[in-house]
């Protein structure tokens, strides 16, 4: 799906979202009930660089500083984090963390944050963008992953065919929407006909405030992460009971 198609489907009434530097998107859109939302994005499957992180984080901070509590919608088609010696030298971990931090901060102080993944997102770039929003939606074309199977095969020293066989029995490591959704990463996958995108977006913006991280509950319910939620709860129970 192109960003234009996605924007037209989400905001049929009006939008002023334009291309920015480094394959980013930025602007505002108007929902059917005249509510304004801020829109940011990455296009073209572009690897997440320090420059993109600073560009997007700067916009989020401007929105925070405006004093409004406008929701922020992130339209995402990135790749992995950019893999160069130069970026690592400059502290890419700080840039990725900075972007994740400002997105989380915006959510914490009352901007409802929604990620809509319409392309790829992998590894650290997935963490710093899509997974930093309060609610992640996938639409046609979404391909979230941690690492592709050939690379996992190389690192784990397992033949690719063996890995592909194992992937059929568990969602725990395979790329793609169904496996990531099973672990709780994806809140909803929206249908390809796109007719009800505005209503669906409105529903997310109005039904919960996004303040609680519910993804391990979702992963438990969907069976993709069966023990994480229980362990986190057991730790919390024990924490207040151990000898001090």
């Amino acid at each position, binding site marked *: 799906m192109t960003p234009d198609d996605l924007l037209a489907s989400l905001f049929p009434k009006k939008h002023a979202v334009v291309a920015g530097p480094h394959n980013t998107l930025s602007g505002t859109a108007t929902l059917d009930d005249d509510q304004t939302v801020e829109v940011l994005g990455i296009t073209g499957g572009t690897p997440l660089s320090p420059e993109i992180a600073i560009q997007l984080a700067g916009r989020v901070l401007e929105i925070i500083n405006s004093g409004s509590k406008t929701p922020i919608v992130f339209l995402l088609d990135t790749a992995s984090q950019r*893999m160069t*010696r130069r970026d690592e030298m400059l502290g890419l971990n700080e840039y990725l963390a900075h972007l994740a931090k400002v997105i989380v901060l915006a959510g914490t102080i009352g901007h409802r944050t929604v990620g809509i993944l319409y392309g790829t997102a992998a590894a650290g770039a997935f963490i710093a963008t899509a997974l930093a929003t309060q609610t992640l939606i996938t639409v046609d074309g979404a391909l979230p992953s*941690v*690492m592709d199977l050939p690379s996992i095969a190389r690192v784990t020293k397992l033949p690719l065919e063996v890995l592909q066989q194992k992937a059929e029995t568990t969602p725990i490591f395979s790329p793609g929407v169904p496996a990531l959704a099973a672990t709780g990463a994806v809140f909803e996958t929206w249908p390809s006909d796109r007719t009800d995108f505005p209503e669906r977006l409105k529903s997310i913006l109005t039904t919960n405030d996004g303040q609680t991280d519910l993804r391990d509950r979702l992963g438990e319910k969907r069976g993709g992460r*069966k023990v994480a939620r229980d362990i986190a709860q057991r*730790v919390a129970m024990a924490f207040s009971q*151990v000898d001090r």
Partner: protein
Amino acid sequence: MIPEEIIHQPSWYESSARARIVGLLDTDTFAEILGPADRVMSPHLDLFDLPPAFDDGMIIGRGKLAGRAVAVAAQEGQFMGGTFAEVSGAKLVGLLRAVTAAVGTASAVTSVLLLLDTGGVRLQEANAGEMAVSEIIRAVLDTRRAGVPVIALIGGRAGAFGGGGIVTACCSHVVISEQGRISVTGPEVIETNQGAEEFDSRDRALVWRITGGRSRVLLGGADSYVKGDIAGFREMAIRVHNTVPAFSPETMMMEQDRLKKRLEFYGDCTDTPEIWSRAGLSDPDKIYEIDDDAFLALLSQKGSRS
């Protein structure tokens, strides 16, 4: 013969995660939560015919640091590379959420110490590990927002790579030793993807110049530099305790400015000595050769982070 002062100063790099915790905290104050006796193990390693560990390589609990209650979590880099996985990740998420919930109660702590030692997400449980990293980031930031500092201590064999590098930069304060390394994509993976001319992972000096503790603290990716013994990490953890920035719009504006300027000033550099030279440090090539005392003296002259 080994000099006596070295015998009495166990190295952070050489120690196990449990030994680091014991040496870091006040004597006999560590109380582990979901320890080996509870046998909370990875349910996924069996699929790969890999042996699990009774603690899944994540040791968590509470204790005291200079008499103050703290929460502590340590990754064991020698088990599965200290990786974030379903169980190891959930233990840390649970600890951070508990710390946030305990603010203002009798079980409150004054800070969280994160002894990261990790290659990143455990690929055998890639999706669960990725989710754990994301949940840890949110939980770290919630903890900071609730007024409890989260302090990262980096000096283990596995470094802080992948999601571990991102988690590190989400903490309130980062303490590092010369042996500590922080990065996202590891040199081997960059070399595999982009070729040895982009990053020659066998060039150890180059790897250290790009990812190592001295470069990180000079550039601002770490806040404090310590000698590599456990006592040094303990002293620094006590010293930075509660002196660190809140997670607020003001802090993030300053971060935006700092990181933007770094790109403007040094974005075209290709190796770290170029950066040090441009930053006005004398003898930029010597930075990796001088001993820790000389490096600490250089740091105190240089002053604020760039």
